[in-house]
């Protein structure tokens, strides 16, 4: 299964397989892969931004909340963007600069959710000699419910 393969941390490897700005077709779906979100991955993400809320760590506490169990922070889509895309996805191109993002949150992701992504470039343009691509993304859980949806602006490497 693709999701069980070790994650390639060398973004230079396979760089030649990725689309450059000229190749990217707005509206064309990006290849994506399902990803099982683990409690460990949530806890590591929480640690990286200093999250301490027990709703992410303490199952007994989480059961007393409106969510009825452990959840991931809303911003877990930061991890999901890379865990749900393959090595030749152009978001991995070295030198990709993130200019800004907007995200809407529907329901939380939870430990053991099998998460899928529908994603595409939505637009591309040139501004002040920089090559921009707008991407939009929707993450779903295994029940087909929308977790969150978002749009981002990246400056492509030249």
């Amino acid at each position, binding site marked *: 299964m693709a999701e069980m393969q070790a994650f390639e941390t060398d973004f230079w490897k396979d760089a030649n397989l990725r689309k450059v700005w000229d190749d990217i077709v707005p509206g064309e779906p990006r290849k994506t892969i399902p990803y099982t979100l683990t409690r460990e991955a949530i806890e590591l993400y929480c640690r990286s*931004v200093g999250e301490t809320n027990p709703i992410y760590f303490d199952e007994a506490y989480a059961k007393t909340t409106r969510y009825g169990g452990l959840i991931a922070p809303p911003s877990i889509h930061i991890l999901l963007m890379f865990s749900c895309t393959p090595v030749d996805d152009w978001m991995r191109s070295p030198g990709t600069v993130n*200019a*800004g993002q907007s995200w809407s949150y529907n329901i939380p992701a939870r430990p053991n959710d099998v998460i899928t992504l529908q994603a595409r470039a939505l637009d591309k343009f040139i501004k002040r000699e920089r090559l921009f691509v707008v991407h939009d993304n929707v993450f779903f859980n295994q029940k087909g419910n929308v977790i969150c949806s978002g749009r981002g602006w990246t400056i492509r490497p030249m």
Partner: protein
Amino acid sequence: MTTTFEKLKAGDAIDGPTFAVSRESIRLFCDASLDYNPLHLDDEYMKGNFGKTSFGGIIMHGMNNFGLISRMITDWAYPAGAIHRRLETRWVKPVRPGDTIQPSGIIKAKQVTEKSRWVMIDVVVKNQAGEKVATGEALVEFPRDLFCQ
């Protein structure tokens, strides 16, 4: 003091956590986000130019700002039974190892819709020099069936 929709008013402030940025914190964010772009790892690479942009050294992930702002919003919203519904951000200045950053928010407006209640929040992240490194806005829902924790 627990925040309530009724008591909130435009201009109210939300203070977020300070965050010390280091090579280690950036590396940890790489591992947690799986974003191993050399912008965040490779000093030699970062001596180069990126189209029209030059950074001069590794920089923190822009999305680390996003995660910190989101943490501030949820830590504020959860005890009030409110739900973080949206966050939009723009990066305005790179953040580097050695910087200390802090998000904050200002209530901009409240809105009641047919089925719920909403609070719009202007958010900003500043570095230790008081410079804005990220700006944006957040939307928090205060459902009528409040579930306070």
